[in-house]
């Protein structure tokens, strides 16, 4: 498992242990050295079962590769290299080499005064180990080919949707900033998350996304307040399910959303202790925006913006999802024979 904090990246090994050796000759049960005069016979240590324990050990520490804060890492399909991205640069590492990395993207301007755009996320293509994509704070995506040149400052393809003039405001740029980008498992599409929507892009179409889903459009009229309290800068992740038919992302009030690309249905669910006991089925939630208010609806003004679900993940093959809500991690799974859960 890779983790990154600030400018350092670590690779951890996770193991499970359910047995431990007992009956050492030289050390007692607490690990203290035995007084050798008390040892009168030799014994062979035996493995005894114990409670399952998960151990995490750091295996590699990749430090000093970044000047700015790392925002994403992505392991390549060749399983030998991976890339890490910070605000202005992307580096390519070899998994076994921790003191050296290659810089493959550098968008730092000669004069920092000219800086108007930063890198926000990046990912390797799931099948083509030479292709990767990175997103920017202006809402654009750049697909790069490492075979083209050593420094991939010139993109192969630029994906950008023209601004909608009817929705233009001073916050347009901020809400267009892409917080996460994920390739579909098929490798044909990319999923991006910006402040109010998730978008599906076809790799062959650079002019606009093929699908756009509204995550919480009712916040559009509240952008000024959200700018004031900094929530507008929150970075939400997004995820595909194993078959690329459903996409998922987090929102506020411990809500997360799922969109079925085929049926065009969507659902809002909540991850919180109060509303979910183990094995209980999650109840769909609804945010009401004026008009008819049903029972159990939440009004926009009573949403808790401190409860944000920024990190979500979907198992690559099973219908099991992981949702991080503040200090808690929720794991949900599909009810057998059910459509969306």
């Amino acid at each position: 498992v890779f983790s990154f904090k600030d400018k350092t990246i670590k690779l951890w090994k996770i193991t499970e242990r359910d047995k431990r050796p007992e009956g050492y000759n030289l050390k007692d049960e607490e690990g203290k050295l035995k007084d050798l005069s008390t040892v009168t016979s030799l014994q062979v240590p035996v493995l005894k079962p114990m409670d399952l324990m998960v151990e995490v050990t750091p295996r590699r520490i990749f430090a000093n590769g970044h000047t700015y804060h790392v925002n994403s890492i992505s392991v390549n399909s060749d399983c030998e290299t991976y890339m890490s991205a910070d605000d202005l640069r992307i580096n390519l590492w070899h998994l076994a080499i921790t003191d050296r990395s290659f810089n493959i993207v550098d968008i730092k301007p000669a004069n920092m005064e000219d800086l108007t755009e930063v890198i926000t996320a990046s990912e390797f293509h799931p099948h083509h180990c030479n292709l990767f994509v990175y997103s920017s704070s202006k809402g654009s995506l750049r697909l790069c080919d490492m075979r083209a040149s050593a420094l991939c400052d010139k993109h192969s393809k630029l994906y950008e949707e023209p601004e909608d003039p009817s929705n233009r405001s001073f916050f347009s740029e901020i809400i267009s900033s892409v917080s996460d980008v994920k390739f579909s498992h098929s490798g044909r599409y990319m999923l991006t998350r910006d402040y109010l929507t998730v978008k599906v892009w076809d790799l062959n179409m650079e002019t606009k996304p093929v699908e756009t889903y509204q995550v919480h459009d009712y916040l559009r009229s509240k952008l000024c307040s959200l700018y004031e309290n900094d929530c507008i800068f929150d970075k939400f992740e997004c995820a595909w399910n194993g078959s690329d038919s459903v996409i998922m992302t987090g929102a506020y009030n411990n809500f997360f959303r799922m969109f079925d690309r085929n049926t065009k249905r969507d659902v809002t669910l909540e991850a919180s202790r109060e509303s979910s006991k183990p094995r209980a089925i999650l109840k769909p939630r609804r945010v009401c925006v004026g008009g008819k208010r049903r029972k159990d609806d939440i009004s926009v003004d009573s949403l808790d913006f401190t409860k944000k679900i920024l990190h979500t993940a979907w198992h690559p093959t099973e219908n099991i999802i992981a949702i991080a809500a503040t200090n808690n991690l929720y794991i949900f799974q599909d009810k057998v024979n059910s459509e969306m859960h």
Partner: protein
Amino acid sequence: MFVRGLKRKCFDGEEDIDGTLAGIKAIPSYNLQRQSLLDMSLVKLQLCHMLVEPNLCRSVLIANTVRQIQEEMTQDGTWQMINTQSTGQASLDRLVSTDILCRSSREQAEGKHVAGYSTFNKDFEGDQAQDSSETMSTASSVQALRNLQSNVWEMENPQENKGNFQKSLDQIFETLENRSPNSVEDLFSEVDNSYYDLDTMLTGMMSNTKMGHCDGLETFSSPTTTTSNSNCKSDLNELDHIVEILVES
């Protein structure tokens, strides 16, 4: 934290377009709202600047917003009017700022001020006392903007003062930049605290498995260059190494 007394209202660019600079209105005009957004953004940038590890993405987005507002204000003449209304003082602004550039930092430290500059300080204090509110006329909004400007200047290291409004923004980026490599804080930032927390947890587990579980240590690659401080066998070695570097420098 934000400009007190100003009515905060959500707005998008299309509503309440006022067009005139008549100033005092019963409801907050578009210009006033835009002004308050500008003020809020400048305050945010200042606060960004004060953080030890500022968020570059956020700063860039806020700065771009400020630039957009500034451009729009220039286009519809608001900015121009603000500047021409107080031409004398405005040109003194720019004179003062370049003058600061020319002085050595020692002179600045000794507190040599041009008369105009100290007037600004007084204005700033005076304005802080009164609550700027909906009754803010264009003239006082000019004052507020310039006070924020001078505020930004005062917060900056005198050596970095470049003068006008646009540049104060850019200074913030420069200082963000300068905070980066080769500073002491950076060396310490590599010492990842979370690792230590995990470490205390691990020691509890590790003691049971110490005998057979040495491969964790083996896989740490050995230090290859003297300049690198990143390849260490354990957290203690890492810390020692960092201290060594500090002592040498």
